[in-house]
């Protein structure tokens, strides 16, 4: 039934307000003849709560460009160098993703991390992407909330009452990442202040099915302290698959010590599917 969702009254009657969006890019280097990217689709990386485009420019963006993909990373509204906005909702995040995707030169692959994974899942219902990749996706719900309260009550509970959601370094990274590096990254992860979106995480409806039959891959770690393994499996099942798992890594697969393994697996999957 996914294709027949024609009526989108809210999109028509009260469109999401525009905002300045940060988009960073890393382009593949020409290797002589032919198209630089060898016909590979552009990749759009979407970070989640607290992270900006920087989380991908650290490692993954350049690596993907090195393997011949035109790679882009964006910041959702209220994050990184994107503009701030009032009354931010999950709908606005999905809007941001579709807006950036539609401005890329060709049909893009959307790769979202954390809450960015949910934004990508929602965006896939609005834009016929080449493919979608959900990295440690936070689909919300009470189990994820309970996990977050258990691991980090001081950072999570005040968020229920509209305060900033704060993430701890122990939630984000595995043990292999050096503690000074982990501390540095954790310091860059900003507190999030998007009360509407935070509440929606608890109560939102499941994402619609992708338009245009985009294949979707779910990637994560069984040792992720934010997204439990069950949540990863449930997310993957929605798209008729099983999650691709990288044991020993934390939530932030793109910054953790063995960051190269998941991105290589994702690019291999794209090369095969494409």
């Amino acid at each position, binding site marked *: 039934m996914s*294709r027949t969702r024609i009526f989108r009254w809210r999109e028509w*009657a009260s*469109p999401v307000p525009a*905002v300045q969006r940060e988009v960073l890019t890393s382009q593949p280097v020409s290797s002589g003849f032919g198209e630089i990217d060898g016909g590979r689709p552009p990749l759009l990386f979407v970070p989640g709560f607290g992270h900006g485009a920087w989380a991908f420019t650290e490692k993954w963006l350049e690596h993907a460009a090195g393997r011949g993909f035109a790679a882009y990373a964006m910041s959702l509204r209220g994050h990184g160098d994107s503009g701030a906005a009032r009354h931010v909702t999950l709908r606005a995040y999905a809007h941001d993703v579709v807006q950036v995707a539609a401005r*890329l*030169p*060709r049909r893009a692959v959307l790769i979202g991390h954390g809450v960015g994974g949910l934004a990508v899942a929602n965006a896939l219902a609005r834009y016929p992407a080449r493919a979608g990749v959900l990295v440690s996706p936070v689909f919300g719900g009470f189990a994820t909330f309970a996990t977050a309260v258990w691991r980090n009550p001081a950072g999570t509970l005040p968020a229920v009452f509209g305060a900033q959601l704060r993430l701890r370094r122990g939630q984000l990274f595995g043990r292999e990442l050096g503690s000074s590096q982990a501390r540095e990254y954790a310091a860059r992860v900003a507190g999030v202040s998007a009360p509407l979106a935070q509440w929606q995480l608890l109560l939102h409806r499941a994402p619609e099915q992708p338009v*245009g039959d*985009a294949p979707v891959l779910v990637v994560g770690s069984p040792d992720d302290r934010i997204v439990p393994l069950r949540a990863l499996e449930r997310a993957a099942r929605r798209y008729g698959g099983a999650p691709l798992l990288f044991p020993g890594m934390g939530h932030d697969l793109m910054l953790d010590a063995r960051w190269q393994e998941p991105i290589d697996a994702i690019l291999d999957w794209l090369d095969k599917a494409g």
Partner: protein
Amino acid sequence: MSYDSVRGVPTAPADAAASWRGGTPVHDRAENVCVIGAGASGLTAIKNLREYGFGVDCYERETGVGGAWNWRHDRSPVYASAHLISSKPFTQFPDFPMPDSWPDYPHHTQVLAYLERYADHFGLREHIWFGTEVTKVAPAEDGRWDVTISGAKSGGLDRTQRYAAVVVANGHNWSPKFPAYEGLEDFKGEVIHASAYKDAAQLRGRRVLVVGAGNTGCDIAVEAAQQASRCWHSSRRGYWYAPKYAYGRPSDQVNDTVLSLRVPLRMRQWLFHRTMRRTVGDLTRFGLPKPDHKIYETHPIANSQLVYYLGHGSITPVPDVVRFTRDAVEFADGRVAEPDLVILATGYLPRFEFLAPDLLNVDAEGRPRLYLHAFPPAYPTLAVTGLLQPDSGIFSLMHWQAVTVATWLRLRESAPERAASYWRRHHSDVSGRFNKAKVKQSTRHWFEVSHVDYLRAVEKTLREMEAGQ
């Protein structure tokens, strides 16, 4: 990404003709679908057919995409100042939004840029043969179609290719409709159709009569009010001139807020009339006739400036033209004007020269009678898209038409029996008006639909067809 590999790759046309028709060779294009025209409706037809796994050959007689919106094309009706009359959310394709940094009502050059980006983003140009005109479309056996083309692709010669299905997306705003007026041939002033109006410089310092109060007529009258030395604006009846903004937001967004609450038509009409009275006021004060109909019963006019210039006396409203004399024009109320330029903003008529009229079920008046304004009842593999006059933006309606055509063609293939029974039940029904309001009779309103009523019908059709797959 599977659909990119499924039958989608167009093969080079075979050199040896598979069959013959009337002494000319017919080149078989197997299961490919032919799309005629690379304007907005053609582009979205290619994109959606490809998404459903069909191979597509599109023929476009001009050398670029964009159809009516491409001002470089001879037949493009756009003028330098043309802006959209529906705001962005209603104008854009539902799965490819316009940049949100663009204004609420983009300029026509932005619309062209948008269509060009749509074509590039989805890689549509490789399926389009530019500079190639379709001269004939005729049914062949097994529901297939012989399409005769002429131009760049065929080396200037006629060439006939056989397709599994044909989607006609040739637009309906390029063949001007000229009303017949008594004495027009004796009139010594200049008379042009609005399609030949390109730039306000054409009006400067002249005495201009604009005939017709459609959106184009009103736009030109407003420009004449600023540029011409005198401006008369002739309209057949009183209309509702809706401002482009109401309650601080684009009016169509306010209108859809009310529609989303499923407020009944009568109540909406009352609300609209009340808002108009309170804000725009009584237009008979300016000499305009009182509207002889309720709002939603004629194609909506969105123009905030017309009333403004009426109020400044820069536009003289006049009734219908009765006759032309050597140097004057007489109106229904006996008044006379002496313009040196007359612009007929009297609309366009649909034209399908490459199709025999009975294929499109054309009635005595010349109006194609189609199921959903898209499917001719006797030909399941022929469809027309974009033949609509919605009370809102048309691109999203074209998109859903294209999705419906693609879903239908897929259903015919995957479940022929269900498809046949579906066809029997529905496709003879060409009476659909898709409009709760009592729309005035006129060629102008042949394809007039309410976007909500039409999309509900499309949604119902899609649900039913998808359930059968």
